[in-house]
């Protein structure tokens, strides 16, 4: 238990040396560091750990080699990873069967297992993580430390600079902390991009005996998981950000609101809170400074709208998670009607960096109006799927083609959807645009929480728009009618179009309802609900027209407008298609009669198409 700042600072120096000695080899041991992100855990990281531990004990090398699991390495599509220190070699797509080879060749023999490391397009091995194209253009601020430390070990979190920002803040006047965040021009990373310092300033200026800080961890945007990653991999950073906010505005209570779907994030945050309380880093009279702060965790219960700040507050207060009109803003009247600052996980994880490294260190990255970095979850039809943190102003082309490694299977890039159901799609013409809050809005999308889904020529944009509208329709809380009724009507129109029942008049109606939703809805969920529709109409009107006038889905996705057919002349009667058909819709006699598809039974899953070795099956 620490009772003074000096005592803690002395120990932090010790922890820093300890952690550094693991990575630079000065402690004389080798370290096998595994990625503990969700993607890798699903692909058997723990099986690999078990295997390495078995090999270590079999060779009596417990004092020479150690296997440990850290947070997410980011490049989910290439996991599981094994990173070997001190050499800093990164092995990708490792299977349990590969462990023995890595152990014998690399760990015992000091030799590179060439087939498991990244090779550049010229065929040269690039074993070091930082030199690989996926990592080169990234800058980790919010994700700082996530792929280095054992996430629930407070010593390692302190060793990578954790808590330092809070200690610095304690030496400043409260208003100076608010000013530093204002000067950093940090903007809310949850989607809105509202200046964080301004929120703090309002709450600072609100008179009250009791104020609160709330961390919005209700990450619901489908295709975004950066908040979960930060909460799981470096919970101390978020707690520290909350404490800095608390000190600045004069709050001694903080609430985490985390989705129930993220049990591991909840576990790690709870565990870190307990450890920090036990060590005197959180609680009453922290380190004898007179400042007290208590953190609590509340679980979301599965409602997308709770990402909206007033809905979230209602949910913490045990009510239906419905938004309410603002003003009053939460900074004046929030949790239990007291002044409350609400910040997203990524925002709070960025705050310690600003206080630790200084305002200039932060603003040297990014653009004038959007300084710093943004974390994106790159997904969909792109080669490198995963979590990336890039300086603002990085172009979409760099994100998709350099960091993302281009489109899967050499297909053509069609669009990238940012900000999930509230955003829009951006096409090839936007590729050279820099990514920042204002630019994204100007281009017809939004920065959003950072979901970035890449689509190729095989995706039907009407279908994608329908997908998002279905989502919003499900998640609309029902309080205000423009959103409740408007989204439903839009979805009905889209359903008509994708089933071949649309008319050209639908465009007018879509635009009319969309603008009603935008101007009249109570909260951002309804106000932005029509974005995916408007942006797909803007960029891909020809696809809508093909559905309406020609009753044809150009990408071949909309089931009602697609038929699979077997060309009897090309069919070799091998029966392969009928065997893979999950609904037994394909009939014929092997070796005797050509096979035929029963259109009434066909569910258009496309399995037969990929199974035919003779290209006899086509999609029309």
């Amino acid at each position: 238990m620490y009772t003074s700042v000096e005592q803690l600072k002395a120990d932090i120096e010790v922890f820093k040396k300890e952690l550094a000695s693991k990575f630079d080899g000065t402690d004389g041991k080798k370290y096998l560091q595994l990625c503990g992100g969700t993607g890798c855990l699903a692909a058997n990281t723990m099986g690999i750990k078990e295997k390495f531990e078995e090999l270590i004990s079999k060779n009596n090398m417990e004092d020479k080699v150690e296997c440990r699991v850290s947070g997410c390495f980011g490049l989910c599509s290439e996991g599981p990873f094994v990173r070997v220190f001190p050499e800093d070699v990164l092995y990708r797509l490792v299977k349990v069967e590969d462990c023995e080879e890595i152990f014998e060749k690399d760990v015992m023999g000091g030799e590179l297992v060439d087939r498991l490391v990244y090779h550049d397009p010229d065929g040269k091995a690039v074993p070091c993580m930082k030199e690989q194209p996926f990592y080169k253009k990234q800058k980790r601020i919010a994700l700082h430390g996530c792929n280095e430390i054992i996430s629930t070990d407070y010593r390692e979190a302190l060793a990578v600079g954790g808590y330092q920002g809070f200690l610095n803040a304690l030496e400043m006047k409260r208003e100076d902390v608010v000013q530093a965040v204002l000067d950093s021009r940090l903007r809310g990373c949850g989607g809105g991009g509202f200046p964080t310092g301004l929120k703090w300033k309002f709450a600072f200026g609100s008179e009250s005996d009791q104020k609160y800080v709330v961390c919005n961890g209700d990450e619901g945007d489908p295709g975004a998981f950066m908040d979960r990653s930060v909460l799981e991999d470096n919970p101390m950073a978020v707690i520290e950000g909350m404490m800095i906010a608390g000190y600045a505005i004069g709050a001694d209570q903080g609430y985490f609101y985390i989705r129930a779907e993220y049990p591991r994030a909840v576990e790690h945050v709870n565990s870190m809170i307990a450890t920090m309380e036990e060590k005197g880093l959180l609680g009453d009279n922290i380190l004898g400074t007179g400042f007290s702060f208590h953190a609590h965790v509340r679980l979301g219960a599965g409602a997308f709208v709770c990402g909206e700040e007033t809905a979230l507050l209602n949910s913490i207060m045990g009510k239906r998670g419905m938004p309410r009109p603002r003003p009053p803003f939460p900074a004046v009247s929030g949790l239990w009607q007291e002044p409350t600052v609400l910040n997203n996980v990524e925002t709070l994880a960025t705050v310690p960096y600003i206080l630790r490294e200084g305002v200039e260190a932060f603003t040297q990255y990014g653009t004038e109006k959007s300084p710093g970095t943004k974390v994106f979850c790159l997904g969909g039809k792109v080669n490198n799927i995963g979590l990336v943190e890039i300086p603002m102003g990085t172009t979409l082309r760099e994100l998709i083609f350099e960091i993302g490694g281009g489109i899967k299977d050499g297909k053509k890039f069609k669009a990238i959807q940012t900000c999930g159901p509230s955003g829009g799609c951006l096409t090839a013409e936007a590729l050279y645009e820099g990514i920042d809050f204002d630019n994204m809005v100007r281009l017809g999308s939004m920065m959003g929480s950072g979901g970035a889904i890449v689509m190729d020529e095989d995706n039907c944009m009407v279908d994608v728009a329908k997908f998002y509208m279905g989502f919003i329709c499900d998640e609309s809380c029902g309080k205000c009618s423009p959103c409740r009724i408007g989204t439903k009507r839009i979805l009905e129109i889209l359903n008509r179009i994708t089933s071949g029942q649309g008319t050209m008049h639908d465009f007018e109606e879509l635009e009319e309802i969309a603008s009603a939703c935008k101007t009249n809805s109570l909260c951002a969920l309804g106000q932005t609900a029509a974005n995916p529709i408007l942006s797909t109409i803007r960029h891909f009107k020809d696809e809508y027209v093909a559905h309406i006038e020609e009753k044809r889905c150009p990408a071949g996705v909309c089931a009602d407008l697609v038929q699979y057919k077997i060309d009897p002349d090309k069919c070799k009667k091998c029966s392969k298609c009928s065997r893979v058909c999950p609904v037994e819709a394909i009939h014929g006699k092997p070796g005797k009669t050509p096979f035929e598809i029963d259109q009434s039974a066909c569910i258009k899953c496309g399995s037969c198409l990929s199974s035919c070795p003779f290209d006899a099956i086509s999609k029309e």
Partner: protein
Amino acid sequence: MGHLNSVAKERIEAICDSHANEKTPLIMILSDIQSEFGYVPLEAQEVVSAKTGISVAEIYGVVTFYSFFTLEPKGKHVIGCCLGTACFVLGAQKVIDQFSQLLGIKPGQTTEDGMFSIDELRCIGACAAAPAVMIDGKIYARVKPTDVAGIIAEIKAEGGAA
């Protein structure tokens, strides 16, 4: 739905007591009931109402608002099909349709024998494994419609009878 037995009633009251120090504990109480019993039936809501003084109407409003709470018990194995955007653009809808077809239930429903439920999940963050299906905590990666029958058979073999 039968009446709550006295053990269940006591348990629910104990859950309410454990959150007595909270200012607004309703959702925490309901979460605990959902995790322990697998659903929050009306009878349980009545017990919570009597204990906390919150009206049954308000509690019912909260239970039905959040998708995490259910009025009916879920199946022994919950097939969670991720419908995040990354999974969707890679064909998740066809995977769900195939589970529905083979099990004869729609998403949100439970099979008559109580073995399976299908849930449409919103992004489980396993985008590299898209389309992903999560069953009993295990993530099945890159699932194709043709894999579905095999997955169901595997769970039946592992899980035994309901």
